[in-house]
């Protein structure tokens, strides 16, 4: 890690969402080879994919990990249907357990509602149910020293939290020290006045960043002003972590592509994109020396 730069991670989904022991070892090895400090791993079903395999691969590659998940309409903690909400809270608890078993200290993502296309405004009761469930999850997570990140997403992926200001309010209401705002630049680019405004709205609650291009492709090929964003983060005293998130339909498989509306391939070679993205972010986050 270079002095003054945040810790950089990469989302495992660059290489796809398959998590058999072989695929996990390959993906973790690829992330390490690309030079990252850590990898973000989508929470998997522990009964299907024993966490020990993931833990072993991380250890063999000297890589740290964080865990993420996104709830669905079938396990949505905002739902008035108690069975649906209970499934959601169980998934959150399982993600925390998976994180603990692989030695991760962060669980982030769309932990507060389904990640999906809602067709109505949320009610106050929806929001209250979400607050209560995330608060209980945070209490659980605290026992394992795990922080919970609340990742706000664009209007098409949740009706509840679309901005840093909304999310900061939500996190303050949860009122647990191990809950932070998780910001994703792709979503923020749709919803915020600017990325800098979002960083300031989150303030000291900002805890985790997804560095994702305006179209979710290779970093630097879209409209996000990365150098200005790096300056905004530095001014806010945010030291990381920052995780590269980019997906291509050429890699992720049909279900995942449909889930996130990836209708065209944005790149072909995940390892090349991972290495290029890290180099790009290091350049963008390196302060320019100004001489008088």
């Amino acid at each position, binding site marked *: 890690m270079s002095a003054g730069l945040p810790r950089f991670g990469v989302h495992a989904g660059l290489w796809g969402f398959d998590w058999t022991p072989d695929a996990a070892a390959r993906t973790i090895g690829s992330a390490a080879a690309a030079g990252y400090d850590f990898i973000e791993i989508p929470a998997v079903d522990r009964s299907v994919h024993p966490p020990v395999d993931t833990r072993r691969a991380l250890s063999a590659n000297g890589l740290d990990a964080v865990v993420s998940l996104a709830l669905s309409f079938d396990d949505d903690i905002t739902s008035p249907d108690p069975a649906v909400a209970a499934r959601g809270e169980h998934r959150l608890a399982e993600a925390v357990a998976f994180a603990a078993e692989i030695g991760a200290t962060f669980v982030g993502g769309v932990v507060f509602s389904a990640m999906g296309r809602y067709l109505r405004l949320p009610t106050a009761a929806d929001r209250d149910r979400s607050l209560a469930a995330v608060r209980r999850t945070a209490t659980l997570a605290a026992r394992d020293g795990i922080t919970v990140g609340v990742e706000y997403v664009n209007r098409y992926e949740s009706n509840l939290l679309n901005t840093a200001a909304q999310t900061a309010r939500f996190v303050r209401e949860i009122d647990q020290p191990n809950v932070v705002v998780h910001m994703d630049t792709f979503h923020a680019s*749709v919803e915020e006045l600017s990325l800098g405004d979002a960083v300031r709205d989150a303030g000291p609650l900002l805890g985790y960043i997804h560095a994702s291009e*305006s179209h979710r492709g290779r970093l630097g090929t879209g409209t996000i*002003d990365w150098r200005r964003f790096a300056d905004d983060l530095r001014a806010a005293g945010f030291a990381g972590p920052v995780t590269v998130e980019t997906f291509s339909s050429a890699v992720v498989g049909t279900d995942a592509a449909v889930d996130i*509306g990836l209708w065209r391939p944005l790149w072909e070679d995940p390892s090349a994109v991972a290495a290029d993205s890290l180099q790009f972010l290091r350049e963008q986050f390196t302060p320019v020396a100004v001489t008088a």
Partner: protein
Amino acid sequence: MSQNPLGVHALVFAGGTTPDEMSLIIDQTAAAGYDILELSLHDSPNLDVADARGKLEAAGLGIVCSRGLAFTADVSSDDAEVVARGARLLHDSLQITHDLGGTHFTGALYSALGKYGHALSSAGRANVVATLKDLAVDAQEKGMTLGLEICNRYETNVINTAADALRLADDIGHDNVVIHLDTYHMNIEEDDFSRPVRLVGDRLGYVHIGENHRGFLGSGHLDFASFFHALADIDYTGPVTFESFSSAVVSPTLSNDLAIWRNLWNDGPELARHALSFMTNQIATARAV
């Protein structure tokens, strides 16, 4: 003075299109100083076409109609009945536009306005092409133009980029089918705000100006200078229409279709006046340099 006719989307003023709502929309569009009203046809059963046409003519306003289709009436479907329902909706909407005195009918004419649960199939795309060929012929006979509005990935799986739209227009193969760029959607899908304009070039026929969050122009982060410079470079003289949505103005159907969950403004007329001034200045400065 702008060389482009400037328009505003009716949902800045009212959610529906009943005669009372149309009176309000038309009065406020004219009062704000626009040349054109863009009317979404999502509420057309409540629209009194002859009454609205009279009010538009009295106000001296041009009219453009827009719409997206629905999953039950979708010309990109594999199901012939669903395609047929979509085609009927398109021909009916074209007729309404004509009866209102309009010459431009645009929008997501090629698919439902919504998040698809599957990728576009080749049969579905062939249905889009065949349906829009017929619609283009119908439009040609009426002296009308069709716009293919390029929408983001959450609103369609048919065309998300200018390159996609040009391929579709090529396959439709009629000169009265033009490309419709929208800066809000471009922010999600394109690499920047100038290359798509140059790529489309003289096939650009309609423009939506929307901020990245669909609120006040200039309050977000879109690079409008680059976009308007590119419009000037290709010498675009067609309509430029402001589009913005807030939970303050609700359509029971369209607000949910567009995922409008937040209150980005309360005062539509103030927003519209501001947008006209913003666009006029951008167009003038882009042509001055």
